[in-house]
């Protein structure tokens, strides 16, 4: 049977891994290639790299990092950050990415989802959304969570699926960095609406949080986290053993 996936996420700026809390207060952590290798032998099911570089030089460094990782690590790699055009898909796919995650780029130009799906297949297009409660409504934010788009998150998820997104990353801004658990309410609401794999992000602080996530929202296929893995608060190996002992199917 198919397993639940555990996915560490690496935010990369100028060729280095960083991780913030509530998207602010970013601080340097480690070398992306070394960290990726470490995660691979620890049992990560795939890796997500977000390019949060602003400069062209930084973007070049990111591509170099990606190539180095793809030459040594043979598990799925998803790349996101600054993906605004089909050419951007091309640029990262050529360096060894398997899937490309779109966020603000798709908000600006929603046809990017269908164009990319037509060219590279649905399996290649991951719609990533940063969501926050505004007046009790799940609302999509753009630009790394800084800009309220006013868009309804449930409608956006449905639009993404209809237009060819093969997977959905739901990142709750409300729970991100707080380490109090995944946003079960938000994930359940979105899970009701779509039938593509959902990757939950934002809020993981303990192994129990993953257990609760997979048991309460069966439609969630994967749990994504950054800082708890980077700072070795949870070892992926231990997490997977723990989940297996709790009757959740994982790859060990």
């Amino acid at each position, binding site marked *: *049977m*198919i*397993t639940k*996936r555990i996915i560490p996420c690496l935010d990369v700026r100028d060729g280095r891994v960083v991780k913030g809390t509530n998207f602010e207060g970013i601080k340097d952590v480690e070398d992306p290639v070394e960290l990726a290798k470490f995660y*691979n032998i620890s049992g990560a*099911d795939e890796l997500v790299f977000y390019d949060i570089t602003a400069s062209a030089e930084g973007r070049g460094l990111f591509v170099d990092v990606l*190539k180095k990782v*793809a*030459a*040594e690590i*043979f*598990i*799925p790699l998803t790349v996101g950050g600054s993906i605004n055009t089909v050419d951007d898909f091309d640029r990262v*796919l*050529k*360096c*060894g*990415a*398997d899937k490309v995650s779109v966020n603000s780029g798709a908000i600006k130009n929603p046809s990017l989802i269908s164009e990319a799906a037509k060219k*590279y*297949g*649905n*399996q*290649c297009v991951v719609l990533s959304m940063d969501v926050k409660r505004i007046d009790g409504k799940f609302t999509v934010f753009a630009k790394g969570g800084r800009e309220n788009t006013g868009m309804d998150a449930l409608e956006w998820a449905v639009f993404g699926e209809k237009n060819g997104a*093969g*997977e959905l990353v739901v990142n709750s801004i409300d729970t991100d960095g707080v380490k109090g658990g995944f946003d079960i309410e938000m994930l359940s609401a979105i899970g009701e609406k779509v*039938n*593509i*794999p959902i990757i939950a992000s934002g809020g993981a602080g303990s192994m129990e949080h993953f257990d609760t996530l997979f048991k309460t929202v069966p439609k969630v*296929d*994967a749990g994504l986290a950054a800082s708890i893995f980077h700072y070795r608060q949870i070892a992926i190996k231990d997490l997977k053993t723990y989940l297996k002992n709790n009757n959740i199917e994982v*790859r060990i």
Partner: protein
Amino acid sequence: MIAIIDYGVGNLFSLSSSLHNIGLECVVTNRREIINKADKIILPGVGAFSDARKLLAKDGLDEYLIEQAGQGKPFLGICLGMQLLFDKSFEYGEHKGLGLIKGEIQPIQTQFKIPHIGWNSLSFVKDDLLTKYIKDGDFVYYVHSYCAVECDDALVAVSDYGTKVAGIVRNKNVCGTQFHPEKSGEVGLNILRAFGEI
């Protein structure tokens, strides 16, 4: 040397890197003189069947590959590359495949989500050279919405996704994996290693 067939579909960087990683020489090519010199052939592929089939037919590359397979060269199709080996596919219409393995490609019939994305375990149906370094129950990485059916004679290993998904298939020297060995960690590398030793 292994020839990885380049016919304009997909990213071949990971596949060639994974072969290099386990010490297998390979070249990404669509040139007949190079394919002819290679002692093994890998047909990769992602995307839609009909598009890939059309690209493969360009300049008669499809006929050339059928001829090469007919000479008994070890031949491995991966993902869509595996699906292309069969008689026909029903992905958006009906399309003829290379006809190297008996069977057809149909949408996955399951109550679970489509596409089938993620790590699933293999159950062996019979012994095969490709599986000599892996064991029953090992996990491999799948990404697909269609699968091979009516190919019982060719089944080497299957995965359970609410239905039996053909994971590894073989007809004589022609074999295929529906999953991506180049994305299936150590298990995948061990399958490629075994292919390299055939």
